[in-house]
């Protein structure tokens, strides 16, 4: 309700509502985008782009779904279109980052970090819809219904994507000698 009031305030010409909405959601949107694209610098730009798209299209917000669901939907589409345009570059940046960071740490930390990096990499290797289902459910804590709203599919499809993703992650990690 608070979000809807802020949207209405913005639509009535109160530009201060923009600041309030961005302040409230900027960290969530940034983290969500970063988990999809794995590039902190691009995640910063895409976060800004997401909010610009949001305010440009705010007139089409029908208030049937929650504001948060709508915002995640825009962030997801912005990230996916970025991935589509830079498919090769993303993988390269990610691998370079892993190697440089691994050289810097102590052995035990490196091993733990390596385990997490494999998990992160395994996540990035999942098909896009499965990855989104995991990110929205596990990281963002959205319910199946909310996740379905963001992804534009049924709850059953979300569940199917989510369970296939967990199974996929387990298999990828098993192949590399990690048991979870």
């Amino acid at each position: 309700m608070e979000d809807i009031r802020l949207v209405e305030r913005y639509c009535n010409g109160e530009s201060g509502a923009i600041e309030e909405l961005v302040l409230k959601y900027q960290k969530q949107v940034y983290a969500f985008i970063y988990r999809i694209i794995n590039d902190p610098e691009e995640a910063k730009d895409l976060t800004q782009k997401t909010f610009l798209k949001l305010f440009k299209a705010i007139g089409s917000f029908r208030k049937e779904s929650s504001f948060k669901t709508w915002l995640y939907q825009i962030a997801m589409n912005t990230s996916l279109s970025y991935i589509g345009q830079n498919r090769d570059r993303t993988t390269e940046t990610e691998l370079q980052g892993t190697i440089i960071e691994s050289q810097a740490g102590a052995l035990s930390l490196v091993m733990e970090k390596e385990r997490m990096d494999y998990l992160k990499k395994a996540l990035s290797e999942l098909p896009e819809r499965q990855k989104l289902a995991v990110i929205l459910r596990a990281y963002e804590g959205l319910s199946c219904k909310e996740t379905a709203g963001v992804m534009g599919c049924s709850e059953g499809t979300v569940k199917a994507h989510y369970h296939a993703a967990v199974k996929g992650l387990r298999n990828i990690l098993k192949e590399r000698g990690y048991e979870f």
Partner: protein
Amino acid sequence: MNFRHDEIRERFPEYLKSSLSDEMKKAFELHVRDCAACRSELSIMSGLVSIDVPDPGNLYWATLPRKVEALVNGEKKQRFPVKSLLIKFIPAAAAFAILLVLLITGTGRDGVYDLNTSVNDPFTVTYLEDGDLTDEDIYVLAEKTAGDSLYMEPEDILDYSYHGEFASLSSGEMESLYEALKTEQTKGG
């Protein structure tokens, strides 16, 4: 509290966010302890959640809202208001079109007189004599002028112009008027 396997799997996000009630949390952990599939899934999920997201720093968080606000307001000003312009100008354009139609249909003359061009052309003919018009020309002229709203009968002209005054002058008076105008080298009539 007993949970089915599927119900437990639906509650992973809540468990990881520590948003389950104590009673639910206890039942959840009891199930996970005995269920290998849930244990494995929970392990993967908690591993994913513990992956850090790099913090862009306070400067980024502090400036982003104002930056977005400035860009949104800037874009708003730049956007050309096509819709509102259309709405504003549709009534004016319609009124103009109606006016144009009225002007064309209301004041237009019907057709062109089909007369000898040497008679109609003011640059080639200085005055008209009865002999310049054939009987056929006079008939066509009479037919055409009958339906012309701007056409005035000769008696009307006498009523509204100086021609009437000239008509009432005698030949002697006309002669002296002509002489007076000629003396002053004034053209007119």
